[in-house]
């Protein structure tokens, strides 16, 4: 238990010195979900095995995601007095080479090393900030991800962790904390962009026997993993933000509502709570002050709609996760009928640096109305599938072609989808628009929580609309009629269009239904569900018309509108396609041109993928 920050910091420093002596080599392994999925645990096992055989002593530190998901598994080596060298796409096989060369022969393998995570290049390896991927990024939210061991509270503390909490408790009143957050211009990172300080003030002013703060960690957009990476890589930062929020609002209990599909995040959160309690940073009389606050983790059972705040609160109360109309707003009558404040993971993560560095520091970055930075899960047909953090105001082009490295496989950019199923598709005309809340809304999309899916010319926009609507329809709670039935009927119309059975009046019907669902639905899920459809009609109407009028899918995606044939010139009669066809639709003798029977063919694309001569053509 510590009653001032200096002694807490002193404890953490001695703890680090005890467990991680400065004269010892450190090896950092990226073990976020992305690293694990890419084979990080096998790499870790190989690393342990090899180290045991070597005459060096080194510390293995599991760290969270640094953002370069496209280069995972990552292994970084830091030798005493030397910079941190990051090796990318490491395999169990390359481990012995890397370790022997680097640790025994002082030879940094330039061919295997990706970058120096430091200010200067080293031995021919570029500094990370020199790489286009990192050059324009600005890491506030991801400040610790990939740098500290997420399971070590001491490491968090020596990286200025809990300094903001101490500052808030010892130097600021709850009102001045709220004022600082207000002045920073921080807006909710869950998607809607409501000013955080104002939200806190409403809750503080609201009378109630108890007050609650909730961290919304029910990240559910397809392709979005920003919050997961932060929870896995830097759980204490979110917890610290939540404790400061509780102090500012006057809450005595908090919840972290995290989806159960994030098991690693939950493990690390639980550990963080235990560590914080043991140090007196959570529980009774935090830092020896009169302020007491504790946190419960609630695991969400997998309903997308539980990310909506009223549904989330119902779920915590043990009820069906179903939104209710506002008013009353959660700040007036929330969890258990008491004033409640709900913030997204990223919003809370931004709080400690705002308190520590001041509102002006935060507000210096970004645009007039969108301050600070935003993380994005950059996915789809982009070279660098990654977790990034950029200042507001950066253009879509800078993000996709700069940080993202452009479109994969040399294809053409077609669209970018922001905001997940609630967002819309932006076209090439928006590439030079700045990314901020207002601009994205003006373009028919939304900021959302940070999903950014890049699409190329092989993507069918009608099919994309159908995909997202299928998602929202399946995840609709079914309570209100426009969402439950409106999205169903819109989905059916889209299914008819991609099957080549659409009519021109279907486009008008989609627009009309889309408006009814937007205006009529109870919660944000329904009110934004038509966005993918409305925005694709707005920017890619020609694709809809090609499906309807010409029974043609320009991107050659919609199965009912394409046929497969084999080029007589290119086919060598190798029989590979015929042997792989799951429905025996391909016939032909050895060394003779093969033929696909379109009546049997299911357009599964297997033949095109296995053909070594590009002989399978899609019309």
């Amino acid at each position, binding site marked *: 238990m510590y009653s001032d920050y200096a002694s807490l910091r002193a404890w953490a420093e001695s703890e680090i010195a005890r467990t991680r002596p400065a004269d010892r080599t450190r090896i950092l392994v990226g073990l976020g979900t992305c690293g694990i999925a890419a084979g990080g645990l096998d790499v870790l096992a190989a690393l342990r095995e090899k180290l045991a055989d070597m005459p060096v002593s080194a510390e293995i530190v599991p760290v969270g995601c640094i953002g370069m998901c496209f280069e995972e598994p990552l292994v970084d080596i830091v030798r005493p007095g030397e910079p941190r060298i990051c090796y990318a796409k490491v395999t169990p096989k390359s481990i012995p080479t890397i370790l022997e060369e680097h640790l025994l022969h002082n030879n940094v393998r330039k061919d295997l090393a990706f970058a120096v995570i430091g200010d200067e290049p080293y031995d021919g390896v570029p500094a990370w900030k020199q790489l286009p991927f990192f050059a324009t990024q600005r890491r506030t939210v991801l400040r610790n991800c990939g740098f500290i061991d997420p399971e070590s509270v001491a490491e968090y503390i020596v990286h200025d962790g809990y300094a903001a909490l101490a500052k808030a408790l010892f130097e600021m009143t709850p009102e001045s904390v709220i004022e600082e957050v207000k002045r920073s211009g921080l807006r909710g990172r869950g998607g809607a962009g409501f000013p955080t300080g104002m939200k806190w003030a409403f809750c503080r002013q609201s009378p109630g026997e108890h007050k609650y703060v909730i961290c919304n960690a029910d990240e559910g957009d397809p392709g979005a993993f920003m919050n997961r990476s932060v929870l896995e890589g830097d759980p204490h930062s979110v917890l610290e933000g939540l404790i400061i929020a509780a102090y500012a609002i006057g809450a005595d209990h908090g919840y972290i509502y995290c989806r159960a599909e994030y098991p690693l995040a939950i493990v690390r959160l639980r550990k963080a709570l235990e560590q914080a309690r043991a140090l007196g940073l959570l529980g009774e009389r935090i830092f020896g002050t009169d302020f007491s606050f504790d946190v419960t983790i609630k695991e969400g059972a997998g309903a997308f709609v539980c990310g909506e705040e009223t549904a989330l609160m119902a779920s915590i109360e043990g009820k069906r996760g179903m939104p209710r109309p506002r*008013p009353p707003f959660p700040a007036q009558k929330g969890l258990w009928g008491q004033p409640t404040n709900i913030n997204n993971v990223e919003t809370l993560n931004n709080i400690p640096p705002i308190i520590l560095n001041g509102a002006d520091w935060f507000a210096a970055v970004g645009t007039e109305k969108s301050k600070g930075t935003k993380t994005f899960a950059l996915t789809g047909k982009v070279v660098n599938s990654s977790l990034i953090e950029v200042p507001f105001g950066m253009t879509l082009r800078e993000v996709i072609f700069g940080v993202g490295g452009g479109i994969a496989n040399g294809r053409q950019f077609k669209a970018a989808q922001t905001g997940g199923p609630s967002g819309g598709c932006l076209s090439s005309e928006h590439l030079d628009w700045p990314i901020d809340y207002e601009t994205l809304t003006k373009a028919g999309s939304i900021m959302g929580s940070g999903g950014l899916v890049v699409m190329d010319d092989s993507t069918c926009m009608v099919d994309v609309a159908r995909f997202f609507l299928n998602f929202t329809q399946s995840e609709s709670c*079914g309570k209100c009629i426009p969402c439950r039935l409106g999205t169903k009927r819109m989905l059916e119309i889209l299914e008819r269009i991609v099957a080549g059975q659409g009519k021109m009046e279907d486009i008008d019907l989609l627009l009309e239904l889309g408006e009814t669902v937007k205006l009529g639905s109870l919660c944000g899920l329904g009110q934004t569900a038509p966005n993918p459809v409305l925005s694709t009609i707005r920017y890619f109407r020609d694709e809809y018309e090609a499906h309807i009028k010409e029974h043609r899918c320009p991107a050659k995606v919609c199965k009912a509108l394409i046929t497969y044939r084999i080029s007589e010139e290119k086919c060598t009669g190798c029989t590979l396609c015929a042997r792989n066809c799951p429905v025996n639709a391909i016939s032909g003798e050895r060394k003779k041109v093969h033929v696909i029977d379109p009546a049997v063919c299911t357009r599964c694309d297997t033949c095109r993928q296995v053909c070594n001569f590009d002989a399978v053509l899609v019309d």
Partner: protein
Amino acid sequence: MTITLTVDGKKVTVEDGATILDAAKKAGVYIPTLCADEDLLPFGACRLCLVEVQGDRRPMLPACTTPATDGMVVRTSSPIIDKTRRNVVELLLSDHPEDCLTCPQNNRCELQRVAAYVGVRTNRFRGEKHAYPIDDSNPFYRRDLDRCVLCGKCVRTCDEVQQLGAINFAYRGFRTKIATVLDRPVATSTCESCGQCVDKCPVGALYPEAWLRYGLPTRETKTICSYCGVGCGLILQTRGNTVVGVRGDPDNPVNRGRTCVKGRFGYEFINHPDRLKKPLIKRDGAFVEATWDEALDLVAQRLAAVVRESGPDAVALLTSARCTSEENYLLQKFARGVLGTHNVDHCARL
């Protein structure tokens, strides 16, 4: 504190805490609804009560959940309101059987009323329709989920009024439906067949089994339930001399419209041919019809004889929960004061 607002140009004053819907009702302005109910908390699900509030940044607000505020100016009809409502009803009808004339709820249906009001004339949204089997496991009422509009009145009635929670929303998206625990038939669920939900259902999704056999009643008569001492107010629905339905009397302060399974569904004994209407006296081994005077004289005679021959404690009196408290009081008074015994008991103790 009171609030004064304007609904469709009419000034109306309501209590603090009233919703726009309450105010509209008071002003005599009809706003279509399917999920709103005076006995239940506002739910905001059907989206038919959307109205415009002057100066609000949101284009439309649900009247049923939005509190009325002083000086508020509400419009209940406009091109966008009418269009949204019509589309919502059209969507509902796209997943609803088109057999109103043979529906047990015909002419009592809230969806019919709402559809007539918004004026749906076509259906452009045809698509997949539900085809659930009818749940006839419960002898008292039927459950036909194809007609369900998911207004949630049944769920909320079971939860908020009966405090039972036998049913809830289940599944998601188009597959959302009202289900018992583990989605089992009503008869094997925790449902107590009180019929509150059946009474609240605005459409033909929940209806008494008797409605399959009878059409609309021609007359309603207020009475008191004879099943127990609570004395709930009932409204008997009759056709000629036949009782074809019962509903709770909403004006009766004892039950305020509620009933139990017996009161609501246990009425068919009234018209049963085996029902006893006169006392019977056993003569030569067979029961023979008698007058009330004959029967009461016989009981008095026999009781007096037993007391005379064997003393008062040879007699015991057992009373019934079907009697009122006053009747039970009278019986013990009769036992002690007239017969002279303390041998009194009550079926509720068995």
